């Protein structure tokens, strides 16, 4: 069975990005790790930081200067000021940590945009706040940027690996999950960051990845770079999403179809959602129609279907069913 090709943008701008050479050419660089918090525990954040600090230490502080910015979308602060002080002091040798309580649930896309704004780092790394990063992951995610045409790198998630296809030699893939992904800040700003108007929680990373590819650069999945992201499967080996995960991913799917010029999929999916036994899908369809009526849907792009990949309900060809 033929798989859809993971193509890159072919515009003049895209060619220019591709021909600019590697993003990482100097001996040292800077990286801002950014995490959007939502009711995370101090212990989970602390453990994540411990792994991050070790990875930063191994990457070499003389080669990579690592800062960490937390943006808290929780209704109540995840970290009180004294706890922030503890973490700042505990990891001061390897990380420069800062924390901001947004006081509003901005969602992941807007939260990351807010955290990236004003950063002076060469690279940004989006990281789920409860993710435990393997010791060599930072350097493995930065390493591909010494090659031309690499615009985004992604770590392999454990214990449940995502089944999306990637090239076994280059790592080229359709999209990267922002649970742990790195991209140059300049590129991020050039493509206007995450589309927070269209995406609240899910598919903001798919959309961003596609913007990177549309800009002519490769999204690389690096399986040697691993992170632990606590996902579980039910009996039968099937992933069991929560209700919130089902709702927001359904809503995001419709937005992604809309934005990446697949009105056929929009209409078919709306019908499917209307008839779905699970009420969350009906709610997602209703929300989409409300936005359509209010003319707040994103303007379609990629009308030649060069970048967007919609394969059996997924945003990449999958190697197997999960």
């Amino acid at each position: 069975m033929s798989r859809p090709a993971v193509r890159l943008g072919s515009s003049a701008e895209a060619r220019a990005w591709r021909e600019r050479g590697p993003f990482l050419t100097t001996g040292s660089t800077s990286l801002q790790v950014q995490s959007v918090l939502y009711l995370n525990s101090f212990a989970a954040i602390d453990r994540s930081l411990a792994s991050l600090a070790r990875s930063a230490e191994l990457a070499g502080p003389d080669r990579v200067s690592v800062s960490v910015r937390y943006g808290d979308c929780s209704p109540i602060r995840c970290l009180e000021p004294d706890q922030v002080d503890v973490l700042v002091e505990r990891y001061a040798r390897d990380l420069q940590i800062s924390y901001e309580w947004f006081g509003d649930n901005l969602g992941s896309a807007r939260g990351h945009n807010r955290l990236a704004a004003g950063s002076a780092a060469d690279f940004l790394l989006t990281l789920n706040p409860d993710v435990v990063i393997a010791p060599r992951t930072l350097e493995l995610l930065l390493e591909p940027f010494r090659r031309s045409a690499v615009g985004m790198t992604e770590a392999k998630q454990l214990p449940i690996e995502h089944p999306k296809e990637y090239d076994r030699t280059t790592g080229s893939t359709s999209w990267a999950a922002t649970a742990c992904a790195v991209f140059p800040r300049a590129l991020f700003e050039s493509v206007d960051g995450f589309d927070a108007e269209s995406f609240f929680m899910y598919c903001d990373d798919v959309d961003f990845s596609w913007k990177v590819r549309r800009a002519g650069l490769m999204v690389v999945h690096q399986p040697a770079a691993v992170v632990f992201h606590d996902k579980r499967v039910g009996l039968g080996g099937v992933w069991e999403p929560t209700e919130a995960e089902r709702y927001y991913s359904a809503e995001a799917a419709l937005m992604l179809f809309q934005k990446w010029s697949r009105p056929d999929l929009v209409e078919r999916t709306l019908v499917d959602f209307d008839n779905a036994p699970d009420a969350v899908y009906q709610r997602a369809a209703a929300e989409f129609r409300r936005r359509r009526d209010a003319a707040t849907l994103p303007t379609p792009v990629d009308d030649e279907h060069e970048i967007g990949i919609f394969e059996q309900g997924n945003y990449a060809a999958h190697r197997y069913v999960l």
Partner: protein
Amino acid sequence: MRPIDTSSDTVETGSVAPVEIPRAVGRFSHDNVYGNALTLLEAHRSAIVDDARDVIHLDLSCGDAPLAVPLTASLRRTYVGTDGSPDAVAALTARGFEGHHVDLVDREQIAADLRAVIGDRRVASISLIDVLQGMPPTQTVLAGVRDVALEHGAVVVVSVPNVTHADVGFKLAIGRWDVTPTGVLSASALQHYDASSFERALRLAGLHPTASRDVDRERSDQHFPEDHSALQRGTSLHGLLLALREEAGPGAQTTQFVRVCVPGPLTDEAQFVEPFDGVRPFLSIVMRTQGTRLQCLVEALTCLAGQSNTDFEVLVLGHRLTVEAQLGVERVIADLPTWMRERTRLVRVEHGRRAAPLNVGFAEARGHYIAILDDDDIPIGHWVETFASLAERHPGQMLRAVSARQDIVECTVLDRVGIRSTGSIEDIYPATFDFVDHLRQNFTPNTAIAFPRGIYHDMGIHFDESLTTTEDWDFIMRAASVVGVASAPTITSLYHWWVQGASSRTDHDNGEWDRNFQAILRKFDENPVLMPVGSTVRIRALLRERDEAVWSIGHEQGLARLSAEAFGRERERVAMLFEVQSILDSRSWRFSAPLRVPARLVGRGRRIKASTYAYASTEQLAEVVRNLRASRSWRATKPLRRR
């Protein structure tokens, strides 16, 4: 077994409490305690000492001195017996041996008394046969003996009865403790020894065992009453207890521990056993690696770093590592965050096959529970948490969750080696542990199970290193029989299945797998097996299923038989119908039709058609054939049928 006379003398010296000295009345035999003691002494001669003149052997609390004659003959040393009983000393000297009245009081006194006995002679050896158990735990006599032995470079043979003989233990397990005038549970004994406490007492006194020659008897003097179900060799109970006892350690049939010691420094270890009051992690994770797939090790350790319950330690068992592999494994461990690195250690194992590192890892484990996680397995975030939750509800049992299988390969992306899953997560193992099912095959990958430490450390159940494959199944079943299994129907780990490259599947051929399989089945039947609570329900259900299957097969066979009979009858009937048809179709019948017209005209007959008899029985058709052949028209046309 040497009988010990309970009549004893006492000695009082100053403020030191008198020590009762049991009086020996045994006889020498080549394989009793005296014979074994002499064998040890023969094997530990000192050329320098024995070549000297005036070399003696001191036999303390010698009683009737059973060693005197054989020792003198064998070692050619001067036998010198001491005893607290003047009668014993008198009897010894009357036999022509040197005897002295020496009481076992304390360290200084015994040393002084012995020095007086020795004079300017050399002591080659000293024996204390069946003496120690008659002294209180606070005794210091042994240290005094050590002092004298050290001065002369002498070896010391010491023996005590073994209170952990199966006869004693099995009766005690059923609530019986028989103190006898003499013997293993002698009324005169102030202390009872197992191998461990005996050797500890020796070390505390500065006597360091170098060899042993214990006295083994299947039936000790405690082998009574004869009809006790726990003692009789043919009973299931005895078989079960003996299997457990022998697995737990040596000495089940030892009546006397006999050790030869050299004098050395006194140790300062605790005199008595104290309950462990240190802190144990909940789980010890034993992780085998050969260091050939370091990326797998990185993945497994990263998943451990992400566990929701971090009350664990990790023992990385490096099995036959090359230097390069060892450096690789050490680097992976050194890379870990501090908190993980502090609880992870590499243990190198240079011997054995697959089971060897497991035994080493289990022996090193400090946790209340021990789990196996090979370096290519993946624990999900609640792997430890699920075990801990089960342990809280079912303390002491084995803990079993579910492991799902996933195919993987190695791949190299941008020159870096990674692991790539190639198939769905396959939930192929049962959600709960069924002991009966597991008697046929292992349905529990070792990643899915945690063992209570007592299985290994107290019950002595170890991995069978003679098995080259499926050693985990054998271990699981032996442990499950003893402690039972608590299950959580939750997938908590992924068992990786290498699609390419070497693995245990490819390292061993089918014949080897089959040999190990058969060996494990044989082991199941070697000893009685304890079944978990509820097993009789399971067995009844299986028997019912079997009965139903047998009935069903019989029923099906019956139906088939009936069908065959019915088919035969039908064939007969159809043949008869064809006969009717062939008569009616025959030329002679058709030519004779005019003969039958008159009869039909007067209403005595009707036109005969084969279809009339389509549903007639065989018998009815036979009657029709007979009637047709007897008919006037058939007989009249007989000439037409001649050929």
